[in-house]
């Protein structure tokens, strides 16, 4: 505190009593490597979005009622009655996504550049703990949006907890605060979302920042400059002393530009797209819902659909802890050596695999081809060309196809479920007998309709299906595309034969 003005004297006094001025000065003006440029802005952006979350979150707690009886109405009230309330919710929701994305980019960069190596192992471990906490905040935040997705999402969480061996059922009651999802459940998740997890995050962020200051900001990795714990510190300090720049303002300039732009982007997104939900009412009696998690967890939704049933419980329960433990152990598995990505091909390959897998799973989660389209049977029309010129029996079959909910899992004309194969060319793949067998006995993920359809209904259905040849595709197996055995073909004009000669139509039918 060399300055002798009033400000200088005040700062000197504060520093004398608290020591905080020196600490702040060190944090602001410590030297950082000159090479710390745009790659280094994502951590700051994550922190900025966290601060946005704190501020908007505190305000939301003044408006949101964490009671299952009133939460939904209070959300609607915030959106519709509180001036700018919708914007507050929108900011909180969008900033949550932005924070998670910035955090993941930040982690990716740290991994790619080998920054977790000596002496920054614990900075990384604290970061992994922060990542888990942040994802916890995102999940519990979805519960605060007390709608159908939140309610049934809790049900899925409860079913997963219930699978823990021995104590699963006990643990489920602790998590839910009772024998079923109820007011107590929302209260418990509110405590997690508003007190426990943010408190943990604040503590971990403090630790993370102290460790960043202690270890120093890493340089951009250089080929041929491996990390040797014996000499690293000395060399790093030497280089930073010689060529480093003060964090503020030199390095912080880029953080400021990026964070400012990101903040404006956030406000734009929030203003344009508005808040998330709330969706349909969270009532256990409204079951015509298709619960979906938010975008961030869509990959998890896909995983749960795609895991083989017999290993599912094991993988759901053991996978995440092992994954997190492995992430945290990374710097101890590989504490030294080259940091440059070009010298760490295995790490780069692993990263590519993880990113690709997450992207593909997220896309699958978004399209969820395994889910039946529950309303397809009543809401999607039958394509006109599929009924034109069909016999009464075949037309009855077309109705049966809708009526028996076949289209919830099978598409025709590009519309309907994707759980089973599309039926547009089913007649080229299965002959009459095989169609009957498939419908009656099911198999290959299809339920058996044997007991549920009368023989007349089955016959009509098969008669219709055997006209679906994908628009003149040739039969792919012997006997396919023969109409009902022994049936007189003549009354049916082939629907696709318009303009063609009868002979052609017959050839098609007989093929």
């Amino acid at each position, binding site marked *: 505190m060399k300055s002798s003005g009033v400000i200088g004297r005040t700062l000197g006094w504060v520093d004398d009593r608290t020591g905080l001025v020196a600490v702040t000065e060190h944090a602001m003006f410590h030297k950082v490597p000159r090479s710390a440029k745009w790659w280094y802005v994502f951590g700051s952006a994550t922190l900025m979005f966290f601060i946005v979350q704190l501020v908007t979150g505190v305000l939301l707690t003044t408006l949101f009622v964490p009671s*299952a009886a009133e939460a939904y109405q209070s959300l609607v009230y915030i959106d519709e009655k509180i001036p700018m309330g919708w914007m507050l919710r929108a900011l909180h929701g969008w900033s949550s996504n932005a924070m998670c994305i910035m955090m993941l980019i930040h982690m990716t960069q740290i991994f790619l550049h080998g920054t977790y190596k000596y002496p920054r192992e614990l900075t990384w471990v604290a970061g992994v703990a922060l990542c888990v906490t942040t994802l916890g905040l995102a999940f519990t935040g979805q519960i605060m949006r007390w709608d159908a997705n939140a309610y049934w999402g809790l049900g899925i969480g409860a079913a997963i907890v219930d699978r823990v061996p021995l104590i699963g059922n006990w643990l489920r009651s602790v998590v839910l605060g009772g024998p*079923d999802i*109820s*007011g107590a459940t929302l209260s418990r998740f509110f405590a997690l979302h508003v007190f426990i997890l943010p408190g943990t995050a604040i503590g971990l962020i403090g630790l993370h920042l102290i460790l960043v200051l202690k270890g120093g900001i890493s340089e951009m990795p250089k080929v041929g400059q491996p990390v040797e714990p014996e000499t690293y510190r000395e060399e790093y300090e030497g280089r930073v002393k010689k060529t480093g720049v003060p964090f503020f303002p030199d390095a912080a300039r880029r953080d400021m530009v990026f964070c400012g732009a990101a903040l404006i982007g956030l406000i734009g997104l929030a203003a344009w797209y508005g808040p998330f939900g709330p969706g349909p009412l969270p009532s256990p009696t409204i079951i015509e*819902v298709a619960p979906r998690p938010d975008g961030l967890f869509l990959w998890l939704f896909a995983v749960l*659909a795609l895991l083989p*049933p017999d290993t599912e419980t094991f993988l759901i329960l053991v996978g995440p802890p092992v994954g997190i433990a492995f992430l945290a152990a990374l710097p101890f598995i590989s504490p030294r050596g080259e940091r440059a990505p070009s010298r760490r091909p295995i790490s780069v390959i692993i990263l590519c695999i993880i990113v690709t897998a997450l992207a593909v799973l997220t896309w699958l989660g978004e399209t969820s081809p395994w889910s039946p389209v529950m309303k397809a049977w009543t809401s999607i029309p039958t394509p006109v060309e599929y009924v034109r010129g069909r016999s009464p029996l075949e037309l009855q079959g077309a109705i049966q196809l809708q009526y028996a909910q076949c289209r919830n899992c099978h598409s025709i004309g590009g519309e309907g479920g994707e759980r089973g194969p599309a039926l547009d060319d089913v007649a080229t793949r299965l002959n009459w007998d095989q169609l009957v067998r498939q419908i009656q006995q099911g198999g290959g*993920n299809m339920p058996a309709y044997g007991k549920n359809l009368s023989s007349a209904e089955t016959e009509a259905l098969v008669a219709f299906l055997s006209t679906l040849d994908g628009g003149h595709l040739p039969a792919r197996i012997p006997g396919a595309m023969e109409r009902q055995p022994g049936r007189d073909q003549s009354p049916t004009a082939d629907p696709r034969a318009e303009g063609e000669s009868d002979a052609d139509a017959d050839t098609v039918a007989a093929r």
Partner: protein
Amino acid sequence: MSERPSEESTGVDSASANSSEADGCEGCEAAKGGGRRGFLFAAGTTLLTVGGGLAAVPIVGVAIGPAEAGDPNRWISLGKATDFKIGETVLVKFTNPWDSPTDGDTNENVCYVRCIDHATFQVFAVTCAHLGCPVEWFAQSRLFMCPCHGGVYYEDGARASGPPPRGLYEYVWRVEDGSFEILGGRLPGLQEST
């Protein structure tokens, strides 16, 4: 411990400099030694432990209380047994036998009742045996379908296809004086016997 550490040694700065403590921390010395300081240390430790233990009773009690509350299941009437149409499966609402002022809609619940005849029923939970999404009944194809990961069940609740590891959960039911009742209250799960 013939020579007691001077009083100044409690100061943070001078503690490490005090030669009499070079072989151990001050607390350890005090804990081991007798006399007033040893007594105070032991008393402090004991009081804190007892106090912490006492405070833990309500804290842990409330935290895990819901799991220790005993069996929440009660007989719940769903109406007259003869009101159900033979051969039909219907969605029936009921109210949880336990509640709190903040439950709101979650206090309501639903189940599927399949009436085979007026003395034979099946009562299914709406929650899928895979991961608990609500299954929907389709009377035309006589199937239950799950909107989440595509689990399908037959009308008797047996698993038809998809990821569920078993058939639908069933409630225990009885007909008492013509009233059709189920034993409900707890969210069914894989670890329940039904």
